[in-house]
């Protein structure tokens, strides 16, 4: 997948409203290898955009295409492959499993893709300062710590595009810098595009283009 494009996209909830947006009801394409920022205040549909992009909500009009394939026409089996090998998403609500430990939460993704070694995972945990929590249950951790675990999980797979939905909403600037570097290195190594959403604090990356939603 080299390109993601939106064609006249509009969430059903906005269909009776007058919308001023750089994405809704526009034709836009995102290229592999570039960084994009989607900024907005709360309630403009950032998480909806992510869920449309990841194929688990379809309550919109218009089209989303991966290269030239329309996503609404993809079968569940095709989605399985895309979510495993081509597109990675950091959910705003993280979607970690509270009954599993930090390492298990990451491994449940990595076992599927076999993308990183346990050593590499431990290095990333150490880099983000949570290596001493490896065997701790997720339920016992703060949201900021959970965010870091979820980010590492999202990096444990091959991808052409990485979508991060408010990745540093609960993190300090120091951690934000570390994460920015980790994400940029991985994206560069994979030649991938990065799409970041934000409601104020931006992940400090160099962005090709910024959209106001």
């Amino acid at each position: 997948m080299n390109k993601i494009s939106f064609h006249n996209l509009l969430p059903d909830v906005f269909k009776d409203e007058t919308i001023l947006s750089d994405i809704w009801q526009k034709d836009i394409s995102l290229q592999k290898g570039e960084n994009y920022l989607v900024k907005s205040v709360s309630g403009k549909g950032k998480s909806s955009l992510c869920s449309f992009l990841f194929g688990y909500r379809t309550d919109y009009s218009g089209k989303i295409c991966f290269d030239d394939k329309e996503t609404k026409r993809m079968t569940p089996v095709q989605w399985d492959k895309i979510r495993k090998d081509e597109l990675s998403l950091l959910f705003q609500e993280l979607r970690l499993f509270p009954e599993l430990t930090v390492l298990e939460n990451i491994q449940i993704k990595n076992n599927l893709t076999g993308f990183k070694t346990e050593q590499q995972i431990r290095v990333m945990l150490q880099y983000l300062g949570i290596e001493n929590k490896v065997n701790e249950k997720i339920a016992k951790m703060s949201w900021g710590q959970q965010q870091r675990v979820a980010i590492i999980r999202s990096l444990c797979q091959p991808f052409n595009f990485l979508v991060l939905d408010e990745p540093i909403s609960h993190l300090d600037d120091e951690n934000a810098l570390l994460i920015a570097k980790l994400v940029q290195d991985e994206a560069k190594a994979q030649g991938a595009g990065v799409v970041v959403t934000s409601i104020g604090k931006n992940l400090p990356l160099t962005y090709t283009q910024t959209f106001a939603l």
Partner: protein
Amino acid sequence: MKLIWKLLKQNISKPQLVGFFFANLIGMSIILLSLQFYFDVNPVFTEEDTLFKKDYFTVTKKLGLLSPLASKKSVFSSKEVEDLKQQDFVKDIGSFIPSQFYVKAGITTPDQGGFSTEMFFESVPQQFIDVKSEDWRFSPVDDVLPIILPKNYLDLYNFGYAEARAMPKINEGLIKMVTFDIYIQGNGDFKKLKGNIVGFSTRINTILVPESFMLWANKKYGGKEDVSPSRLIIEVNDITNPQIATYFKSKGYDIDQGNTAASRISMFLKIIVTIVIIIGVIICALSFFILMLSIYLLLEKNMQKMITLRLLGYSKNIVTKPYILLTFVVNLASLVLASIVIIVVQSLYNPVMENVFMSYEPSGILLTIGIGLVISLLLSSINSWVIRSKIE
């Protein structure tokens, strides 16, 4: 897979599973046990007379007080036979031909001398007899005469004579290996033959020989005149046709359908077994719903986890596999236990049955377990289908 199981086993309710397991075990045991009992016991009552075609009657005229004196009246005239042939329900008709010569049968043993008795033969046309044709034929040159005896004769010996004289009981297989000496005599001529019993009939009470022999022997040793038959054998199209009874009643004929008491018992057995099986099916169906509800609850509780797994890229097959495996394992485990129950219970009633019924032979358990397996797999498949259809 280990992690997936660790995740998805959350919220599995053990009491619900145990409840299902025992309900299913009870239902399955009742169904399989009644089937097994039916397979074991039914053959005792439906001992098919394999020597004869299925749907036939023997027909005689009613014997009145004076009929021994007027023997003409107890035989069928050619006109009466012709009238029977015209009836819709009659598929085939044949007459019993009695022997018109002197017959003596005996058995000689090397050290004990032996015994002999006067007797008689009858024959019915070849097409009514269901014995392999090479066993049921006679040719004047080879001197071997196949014979079908009524089963009653053997019972009479085994349960009457042998009991009273403390003689060994003999079974059908043994007696078939013995050959008898048979003398036939008439018209100043005689012949010695070897009699060979090819089978026992529970349905026709006479000593049968091949018709070809009877025609040959009656001509050579018997009286000259043709005798009218006193018994007819009739094959019918449809044994339930009410016309049959009406016709015979109006003509004053007696019909003998063979073993009616046994077939009635067999029918009662079928009804009882059916009722018990229905109860088993109801229990099984209820237990199936318990499992189904339990799984629904489990799916609802773990739905978010499963959705997340799907979003992480796990296929539907992998996500549903733990629950599908669970239903198969629980269903098959209760089948295994039910099979053990059947084996144990069968071993308890077998000795009793063997005492009560001479010809009781327990049938194999494989058919029953096979049926159980089909039920079990069917239930598991429905469960799997429901699970799969709940997950997007």
